[in-house]
């Protein structure tokens, strides 16, 4: 299997390089998509299925879609006009950093295991049996709460830039509608399944949110969903629901137990699932709006 790992690592590097040096944008983005899938595969090899799922769905899939959409709207890239000296300096710096990192990882002081025993000791009290979900929604829930704030901050920023051009209506043909009829409800079903599964197995709010966003995007492309036609207030409320529920739960837990984000004894799982439900809806809606763009709250034309 070590040969397979070596080949996969080499393929990852080649795909990464081709994504960053392709002369045309479509080629670069195609390289990036391949790169993301290969990376997800390598993480399965490293026993990180949760991360691989998220990378394939969000890191590669959704980012690739965002890139393709932007590439379609932008003028083709001009040739690089970077002076030779800057290239040399950058190459030197990059080689130095990569070399330093390589030396560092080859000279790691034996395995220092700090988190593992702590997670194992507390997993029983966390309400869920998937340790990644326990870390995200219980042990380090503050990180996750702030992460939702990052999503919303990005949306606020995009909205503050004002509206952009309306997308061209696409002709999608007769096969698309039956496809939507299967896929849109299925995405809701799969998202719910992933959400429920996240408590015990790989999955959870982020993967579920990404799947939900995929379903919403399919509807958007089919013309069945036009965010611009929905009043902005309710749309924002949908995006904010997850984090609002999360923050409210954090404060409610503080009122009930005296500690921020400490869920009441025995009820952890219900609290976590409720929060995750809100997060899933918000993540789906926020990612969709980051893709489609949105008009500022009250500035409706």
């Amino acid at each position, binding site marked *: 299997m070590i040969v397979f790992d070596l080949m996969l690592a080499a393929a990852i590097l080649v795909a990464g390089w081709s994504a960053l040096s392709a002369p045309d944008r479509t080629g670069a983005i195609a390289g*990036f998509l391949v790169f993301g899938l290969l990376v997800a595969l390598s993480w399965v090899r*490293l026993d990180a299925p949760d*991360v691989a799922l998220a990378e394939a769905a969000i890191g590669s899939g959704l980012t690739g879609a965002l890139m393709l959409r932007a590439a379609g709207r932008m003028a083709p890239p001009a040739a690089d006009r970077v002076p030779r000296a800057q290239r040399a*300096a950058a190459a030197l*710096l990059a080689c130095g950093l990569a070399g330093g990192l390589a030396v560092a990882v080859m000279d790691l002081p034996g395995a220092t*295991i700090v988190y593992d025993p702590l997670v194992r000791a507390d997993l029983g009290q966390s309400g869920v049996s998937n340790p990644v979900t326990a870390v995200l929604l219980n042990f380090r829930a503050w*990180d996750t709460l702030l992460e939702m704030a990052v999503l919303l901050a990005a949306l606020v920023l995009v909205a503050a830039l004002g509206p952009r051009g309306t997308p061209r209506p696409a002709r999608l043909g007769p096969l698309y509608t039956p496809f939507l009829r299967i896929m849109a409800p299925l995405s809701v079903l799969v998202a719910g399944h992933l959400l429920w599964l996240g408590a015990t197995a790989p999955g959870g709010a982020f993967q579920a949110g990404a799947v939900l966003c995929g379903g919403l995007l399919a509807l958007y492309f089919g013309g069945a969903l036009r965010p611009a036609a929905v009043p902005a207030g309710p749309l924002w409320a949908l995006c904010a629901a997850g984090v609002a529920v999360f923050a409210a739960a954090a404060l409610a837990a503080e009122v009930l137990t005296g500690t921020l984000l400490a869920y009441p004894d025995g009820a952890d799982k219900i609290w976590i699932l409720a929060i995750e439900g809100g997060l899933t809806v918000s993540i789906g809606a926020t990612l969709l709006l980051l893709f489609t763009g949105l008009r500022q709250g009250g500035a409706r034309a």
Partner: protein
Amino acid sequence: MTPFPFPDLTPQLIYHLAGAALVGIALYRGATSSDLLTRILALNVLSVGIAAVFVAAANRGAGAVPDPVPHAFVLTGIVVLVAVTAALLALAERIDLTGAKSDD
């Protein structure tokens, strides 16, 4: 410490080194490209390289259960990065829209 410490070739080490190489590639292209989209892609590749370091460090070798905490870090990082990427792309589109081809 031996003069040239070269540990056994394990999947963990291979992907660790791949992560280091990705960081180098991404930095180089990020610093030498004048195309906005390529620079955004480079930042994405950079973050994947960092994630590879986390995931490889979490792995404790074949058979052992990996540490879930860095996995949670990487999940958070992926979502954070897609948000920032969307913001960067929106800015890049606006710049492309408002200006001529010049980079002033």
